[in-house]
């Protein structure tokens, strides 16, 4: 059972990894390194989505401050001068990144997972997000670009509730 889950997690993570790399390319950013996130660190800007269906997956994306700023500048250039609006948009950025990347990665999922339903992004406490990774079969990678770093993690369980 665990081996099956490990295989599933790796399959999904591979799809998300490839789509993340395409995302960086689209943003005209260079991917410098992709490595296992063995220490299971998460940055301050982390969100997750659930994929539910024949299996339940949780996909986390975690963005560091540098990447957050880089993406904001690329999306909006100098079009936002109001600080309040800027903060609101920055706060929403991780949601948008996970929606884009995971949404597009579904195209390349194995056939049996193409029918999985994608939830809206959810923000939990860092502690609860780490609990999800610890309590379930999971795998995590870090993608380092010339504009900042992104951590992607996938967890699989019959129950990915952090409680």
């Amino acid at each position, binding site marked *: 059972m665990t081996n099956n889950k490990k295989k599933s997690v790796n399959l999904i993570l591979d799809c998300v990894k490839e789509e993340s790399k395409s995302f960086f390319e689209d*943003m005209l950013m260079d991917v410098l390194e992709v490595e296992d996130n063995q220490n299971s660190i998460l940055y301050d800007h982390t969100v997750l989505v659930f994929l539910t269906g024949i299996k339940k997956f949780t996909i986390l994306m975690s963005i560091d401050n540098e990447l957050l700023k880089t993406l904001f500048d690329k999306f909006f250039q100098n079009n*936002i001068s109001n600080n309040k609006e800027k903060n609101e*948009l920055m706060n*929403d950025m991780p949601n948008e990144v996970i929606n*884009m990347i995971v*949404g*597009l990665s*579904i*195209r390349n999922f194995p056939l049996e997972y193409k029918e999985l339903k994608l939830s*809206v992004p959810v923000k939990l406490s860092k502690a609860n997000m780490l609990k999800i990774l610890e309590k379930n079969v999971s795998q995590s990678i870090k993608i380092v670009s010339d504009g900042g770093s992104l951590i992607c993690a996938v967890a699989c369980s019959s129950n990915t509730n952090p409680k």
Partner: protein
Amino acid sequence: MLNIMIVDDSTIIRRMLVIEFEKIGYQVVAQAKSGKEAVAMYAEHIPDLVTMDITMPIMNGIDALKEIKKNFKNAKVIMVTSHGEEKLVMEAISSGAKGYVLKPIKQEKLVEVINKVFPGLRNDQ
């Protein structure tokens, strides 16, 4: 000049689209954060064009599209979506959407789709 309604639960996408439409010279007359809001706002503003996200809370974009088309058969809606998944886009098209644009949004693609919906209205970037 086209009057546009933007429907997306993402503040970022709504803001990006406002900026892009202003650059092209269109007016954003309404913004909705859910399909349910979109249905109500469409009736209030009757925009020339709607950009509609697919995955939204309360009511998704496809259900909102169907609801709008029920009462406004000539409504012109294009889906702006992060889902590359064929099935959802095809369902939207068969429900009456005029086209779709994938996120991250590129202005040239947005203009291309709008030109197809309004063939008499050429937009140059």
